[in-house]
């Protein structure tokens, strides 16, 4: 129960914690069905796929990302009419751009992922598909420096003009000053 006092870990504590478990990826019934449909829609564009619970994911080439998303939107069995979330994850050597799509009609969810090399962070825009994409893309551009080619206005959304760096990145220096 008592934690022996130990110094605050200076770096990511993963390596001196217990051995890292890896979560099992299991689908529920809906997820399996969605995965099947998604696989059919994405077709040969899929590089890799997986998922858990009700949300399957598919990794595609970044250039194909909007295209695949459009097919998901227009497909009659999926009808992913809402861009639920657009985000980026920084795995230091590459970034990953994730679309989470949702259908308000078939109530299915799916993720589309694309790897983006950190030194050439460019993805085609999806603003022509969903209006919501515009702000998401601006935000990701703010925080991760991913350029969405074709987005009409990538000016800073959350950050102010003149902010240097992309704070979402792991490489961004973390503010670490102590008041005491």
């Amino acid at each position, binding site marked *: *129960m008592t*934690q022996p006092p130990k110094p605050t870990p200076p770096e*990511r*504590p*993963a390596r001196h*914690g*217990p051995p*890292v*478990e*890896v*979560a*099992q*990826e299991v689908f529920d019934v809906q997820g399996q069905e969605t995965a099947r449909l998604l696989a059919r829609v994405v077709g040969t564009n899929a590089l890799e796929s997986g998922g*858990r*619970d*009700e*949300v399957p994911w598919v990794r595609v080439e970044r250039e194909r990302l909007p295209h695949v998303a459009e097919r998901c939107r227009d497909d009659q069995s999926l009808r992913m*009419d*809402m*861009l*639920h*979330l657009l*985000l980026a*994850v*920084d795995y230091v050597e590459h970034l990953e751009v*994730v679309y*989470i799509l949702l259908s*308000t009609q078939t*109530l299915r*969810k799916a*993720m589309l992922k694309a790897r983006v090399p950190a030194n050439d962070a460019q993805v085609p825009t999806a603003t022509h598909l*969903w*209006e*919501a994409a*515009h*702000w998401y893309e601006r935000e990701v551009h703010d*925080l991760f420096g991913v350029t969405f080619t074709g987005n009409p206005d990538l000016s*800073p*959304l*959350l*950050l*102010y003009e003149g902010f240097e760096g992309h*704070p*979402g990145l792991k490489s*961004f220096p*973390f503010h670490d000053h102590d008041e005491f």
Partner: protein
Amino acid sequence: MTTTDQRQVDMMLNLGPQHPATHGVFRMLLTLDGERIVDMEPHIGYLHRGSEKLCENESYGQIVTLFDRMDYIANLNNELVFVRAVERLMGLEVPERAQFIRVLLCELNRVASHLLFLGTYGLDVGAMTPVMYTFRERERIQNIFESVTGARLMHNYIRIGGIKEDVPSDFTARVRAALEFVKRGVDETDRLLSFNEVFLLRTKGVGVIDAKTAVSCGLTGPNLRASGVPYDVRKDNPYEVYPYLTFKVPVGERGDCWDRYYMRVLECHESISMIEQCLDLLPDGPTMTQTRRIARPPKGEVYVHAENPRGDIGVFLVSDGSDKPYRLKVRPPSFCNLVALRPMLLNSYVADSIAILGSIDIVLGEVDR
């Protein structure tokens, strides 16, 4: 000489970041033609606190406090969605009593949030009394929160694997007593505002958004339902103990400000009924699973979403197996709702901009995070 609607007399009007009606620090740049809005440019980020980045540097237990402060009107709902994400990643099964208490408190929080909306929306359209009444009833809900969680706003109550501690013994009686008052408060607002002729003038047919645009903008929650899309996470993807509750999901059809307002009035009633059901069903038992004190979810990623008072909140969590998340991304409902502001706003009056913004019910803490 009512020459207020002139052509070609454009003017830029800067609303905010400090403006009494922007619900915090939202800023919009309106291009006016007389009193008519011809263009609008929203500016956010005046409350960008970097929560998501902070989350990567705090342990899972501490992150709950950050989620409290994200949507600072619906704190418990926020806590719940994050905690559920972690629990799902860890594969934890939460005791039923804890689930019921969670849902009960979340619904109470939904009522509190909607009460705040009803009041401040009245304030936005110029009625100064409803806000006083709704806050009075809201205070009762906050008292209950305080007696359960120990805090009025920032509860830090829902923990990974359960809840912090069981509810006090007089909880059921207190909630029932408070609900009576809350019902009265909602009815009072209903009487005072809903069908007031001036209020109808101000909100009917204002800020209309059709279902297609709404979905494309990512509008969720009561705002989307007001446009006629019956999408509700509690119904479509039920979590916790929502499958065991009977409730109605009110759906509008016009998608104007009044519909959005009235959806919330109706949802208040629904939430109250859900709370009563929860009280009836509340089982005995433990409120916490036996877990390690420091949560270390296995490596993997998970997306969990839930119905917040403001819409569909989602948490995308990437864990690398340590006690801190590798990446945490929130789908903030207010952020997406705000995208829909522009289509609603164009070609309306300046005064409408306030009514429309109010009807979307944004919380800047969540928009900017």
